[in-house]
């Protein structure tokens, strides 16, 4: 178990290093408190998928692939298409990710990304009906986490949104008319902060996440609308902290939308 010992010592050293930097108002990679790491979005890298995007956020890499297939609507929404989001913490991405069905972290990730997209009305589900009550288009969003270096929420959300804007509904393959671009009306952006001591940091790296007490993700859309919030971890926020985070999320979300998604 000497490895575990080493790990534990290393993590203690990292903690002190991060905290001492924060006490001087600095992050160890030199970023400001409200600054994202470098963001890179490559769309269309999986041509066989109906839409795809690889997002690199610092060293974190998430590949989103979209498949669109005909299927049955839900009984209570016969006149709307269906969207569903799945996240796989692929074991290539981290020594701690194990093969197998999604664990609670993957479930939370998928559900938070899903909520932001769904509640924003990003996809015009009403335009994805082939025959009301019988056949609609089902949009499968699959998130493949390939390299884990912190902040999977924002990287995954960006990847999903970018991939959706890249998506063409393959109607011809199913003899259901001509292919058409997936009707997209909004561009939701999620921003995730963690709290370390008294500090609240945007876009935590893996080392920062490892020592964070609390996490919060806020997903916003055009016009300053908020569509999803998820507080994570077992630490707490004050009401004041929460209000500031919400406000920052709207501002920063708009910047990300302008710079990377328009």
């Amino acid at each position: 178990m000497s490895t575990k010992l080493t790990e534990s010592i290393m993590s203690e050293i990292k903690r002190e290093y991060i905290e001492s930097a924060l006490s001087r108002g600095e992050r160890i990679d030199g970023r400001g408190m409200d600054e994202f790491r470098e963001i890179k979005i490559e769309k269309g890298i999986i041509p066989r998928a109906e839409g795809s995007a690889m997002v690199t956020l610092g060293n974190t890499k998430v590949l989103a692939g979209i498949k669109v297939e005909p299927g049955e609507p839900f009984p209570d929404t016969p006149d709307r298409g269906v969207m569903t989001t799945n996240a796989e913490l692929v074991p290539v991405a981290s020594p701690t990710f194990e093969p197998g069905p999604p664990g609670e972290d993957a479930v939370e990730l998928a559900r938070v990304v899903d909520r932001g997209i769904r509640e924003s009305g990003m996809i015009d589900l009403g335009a994805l009906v082939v025959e009301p009550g019988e056949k609609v288009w089902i949009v499968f969003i699959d998130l493949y986490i390939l390299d884990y270096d912190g902040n999977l929420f924002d990287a995954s959300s960006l990847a999903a949104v970018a991939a959706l804007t890249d998506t063409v509904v393959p109607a011809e393959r199913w003899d259901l008319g001509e292919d058409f671009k997936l009707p997209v009306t909004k561009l939701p952006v999620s921003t995730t902060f963690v709290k370390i001591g008294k500090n609240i940091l945007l876009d935590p790296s893996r080392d920062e996440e490892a020592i964070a007490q609390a996490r919060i993700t806020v997903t916003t859309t055009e016009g300053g609308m908020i569509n999803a919030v998820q507080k994570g971890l077992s630490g707490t926020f004050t009401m004041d902290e929460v209000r500031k985070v919400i406000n920052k999320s709207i501002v920063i979300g708009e910047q990300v939308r302008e710079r990377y998604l328009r």
Partner: protein
Amino acid sequence: MENKDIKLINEDGTRIDGRRPDELRPIRMKVGLLERADGSAYLEWGGNKILAAVYGPREMYPKHQQDPARAVVRARYSMAPFSVDERKRPGPDRRSVELSMVISNALSAAVLTEEFPRTVIDVFIEVLQADAGTRIAGLTAASLALADAGIPMRDLVVGCTAGKIEGVVVLDLNKEEDNYGEADVPLGILPRTGEIVLFQMDGMMTEEELCTALDMAYNAAMEIHRMQVKALKDVYMKEAEEGGE
């Protein structure tokens, strides 16, 4: 969250069940009703009927999930098959996996976990009948069950949900409001310090609406906390009396 033909707010500003925007549904709490559990609580909140039971601290199994520095608080949120209109298949779905996680986190913030390293405190939340707001009702009941089990905590945990229906921010959504409303904001707090331990939101709200909803839920949580304290007092006074007989 789709607005059907249903009208959720009446012309006089009241809601379909007659409540004002900032009015809670009726809440009843009972502590310590189960024989076997180390602690238990039963809570009725509107149409919600929720049972919470606590076992532990006990040895964590499997061992590799032990935390050498503290107890793990492991909540499991579960809905009875007959708790909803269409029978729910037994077993966890993705929603209950997520809710179990956020409730575990919220309770962990309150429990003095460092007192029981390597152990697990199991909290089982059974939704016997569901009527919107079950996660917060479950959290509130779970915190009572922890107190009943004598688990040391720095505070109770309590919460409330606010939301938005037909453009109006309201407190404590019922099932129809949850189904057809525009947003849902479950909030859990530690009442002594006002710290936030659970906070989720989904729907469509402006910053102002969300802050209003948070305030509304916060204030209601404080009110519900007084009911918690009363429920605990009742059971201990009853025990004291019985002990004195």
